[in-house]
């Protein structure tokens, strides 16, 4: 029994789970009038959290592979813009979605190829592409918001599939977040591609020696990030009702923070989809709960920064204990 318990707590994601549950209980009992568990708050969180959460799933997987992607804050609005342009052109919505996702995949492919073929640190590659794609977007869109209701009235079935509400209570976005987390989790933990991701992130040279095409693995991970950005972009666009060139700003650091809080190592090779999923939730409910605790809103960033540092220290401690 004790050995099962030890084994359970040795998983990095468990520390995130413990903190996540602790935060929920803390905010439930200590927010005024227990507003944290007010159905309106739960509904709002369920609707908004997946925007960052879905992107964080991909970013975390890429970090396990040993790379970073700072360009998500540009890929996301760029994909949103692609969708809007096609919408205005009258393209079939499903085709529009597929093209948008392919657009995201392409942007991810560019990141991957430049990183692996150019032998450039992904931090630098994606810093460059972040600026490049944002610049292209600004020049083409002139940063002008574009309303979509003239082309897609509210309440269409397409919109309901991506951003509807089930039973008047549960936003569909949270189901998509869970579903994508599950799919990526299965790939990461039960498919050989997942093994390749871990091995590539842990020791690239050893992975190569084992016959793993590490360049291809990394490129595919970049493309997964791009596709998820495209999906989140469309969901966000439908929910906002208009395109804004500022969509996704700041997501790159928050997604990394969510992955780190979820136990993903900055050095690669360590992490889990469950941890990334919980990390994305934890970061956002922390912010939400602190507002309910009447923490001065200017001070919230302080607490989030502190939380990130403490999580890294905690995860490093757990890792040292595991290696023993």
């Amino acid at each position, binding site marked *: 029994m004790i050995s099962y318990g030890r084994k359970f707590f040795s998983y990095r994601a468990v520390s995130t789970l413990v903190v996540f549950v602790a935060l929920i209980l803390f905010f439930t009992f200590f927010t005024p009038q227990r507003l944290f568990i007010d159905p309106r708050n739960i509904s*709002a969180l369920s609707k*908004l959290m997946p925007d960052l959460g879905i992107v964080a799933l991909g970013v975390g997987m890429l970090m396990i592979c040993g790379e970073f992607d700072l360009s998500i804050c540009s890929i996301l609005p760029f994909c949103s813009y692609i969708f809007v342009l096609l919408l205005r052109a009258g393209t079939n919505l499903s085709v529009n979605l597929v093209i948008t996702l392919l657009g995201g995949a392409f942007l991810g492919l560019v990141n991957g190829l430049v990183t692996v073929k150019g032998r450039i640190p992904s931090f630098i590659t994606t810093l460059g592409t972040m600026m490049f794609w944002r610049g292209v977007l600004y020049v083409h869109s002139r940063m*002008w918001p574009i309303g979509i209701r003239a082309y897609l009235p509210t309440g269409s079935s397409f919109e309901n599939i991506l951003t509807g509400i089930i039973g008047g209570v549960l936003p569909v976005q949270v189901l998509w977040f869970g579903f994508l987390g599950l799919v990526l989790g299965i790939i990461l933990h039960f498919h050989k591609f997942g093994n390749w991701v871990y091995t590539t992130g842990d020791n690239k040279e050893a992975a190569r020696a084992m016959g793993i095409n590490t360049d291809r693995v990394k490129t595919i991970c970049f493309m997964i990030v791009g596709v998820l950005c495209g999906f989140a972009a469309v969901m966000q666009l439908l*929910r906002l009702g208009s395109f804004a*060139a*500022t969509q996704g700003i700041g997501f790159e650091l928050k997604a990394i923070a969510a992955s780190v809080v979820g136990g993903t190592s900055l050095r690669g090779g360590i992490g889990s989809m469950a941890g990334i999923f919980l990390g994305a939730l934890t970061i956002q409910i922390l912010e939400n709960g602190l507002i309910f605790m009447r923490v001065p809103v200017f001070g919230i960033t302080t607490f989030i920064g502190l939380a990130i540092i403490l999580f890294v220290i905690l995860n490093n401690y757990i890792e040292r204990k595991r290696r023993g």
Partner: protein
Amino acid sequence: MKRIFLSILVVALLLGGFLLDATAQKPGAGMYFRLVTHGGDDPFWAVVHKGMLDAAKELGCRADIDLCGGDLALQQKRFREAVGMKPDGIALVINDDTAWDKPVADALVAGVPVIGMNNDDKEHAAGNLRLCYIGQDERRAGYMIGKRLFEEGRKKGWDLTKAHVAMPVEVPGAMYGVVRSQGILDAMKEYGITSYEVIDAGGLEMTTVESRETSYLLANPKTKFMIGLGGICTDRLTDSLKAAGKKPAEVIAGGFDTTPTTLTGIREGYVTATIDQQQYLQGYFAIYVLYLYKKYGLLPNIDTGGYLVDSVDKIGLIEKLSPLMIR
């Protein structure tokens, strides 16, 4: 053959001369102006840029705009570079009361005319040597929107002495938010409102802003007024109010700029009013004033805003001009 060739040559010369003459008739031909701004990730500046381009086209001059994304150090660097280019004039967003004193003075000494636009020194001409100012009086705009919203509360019979005002801002500490909130505080004094909070909305990202506004509304049920200090905070008001379970006009909301969602909010009754800064005029008049100064030494101060949009009638005109990036 020779005659035909000569005839063609004469006609071509006459036509060329006519065209040259037509081009030379553009009054600003050969002039170059630069706008150095703190703008960036905000559609507001697309309209300023359009105004600048339209004026430059009419005058036949060249003009460029710097968008420094709120980075003061970068903006100062761009300004120095612009001065080094020796343009015929610079329009500068004076978003700090002290940081621009010396750079503007040095530019004027170097013979480069500098006017203020969009944001001005709090002490106006007494605080900075810029030659004149074109833009909205941010404090007056804040006062206008505050007064409009608080008057709505008074009409409803609310006890305003107990009312709480929330003011979400995208970039805490940025001059636009600080000065606008001062104007709102001026209006609050008139209506006897004392309780307020400026909220860090978390930046320019829409989901983050909506999340913070929604959470704040749920956590602070005594909030009777929510005034977005910037365009994005105002844009997200409608969805935040809905998510917090508020009915239209249950919380009196308003703010700045006329994004599609803000205009929808006015239609649905969630947003009572917004200020259209008429920023097209800031870009447009900046070029014209610099030209007129170069040509005739004229230096008018021009107040470009704010236009109060508080009814469905006013929305129609804006929606027509919005795709053209004029409003």
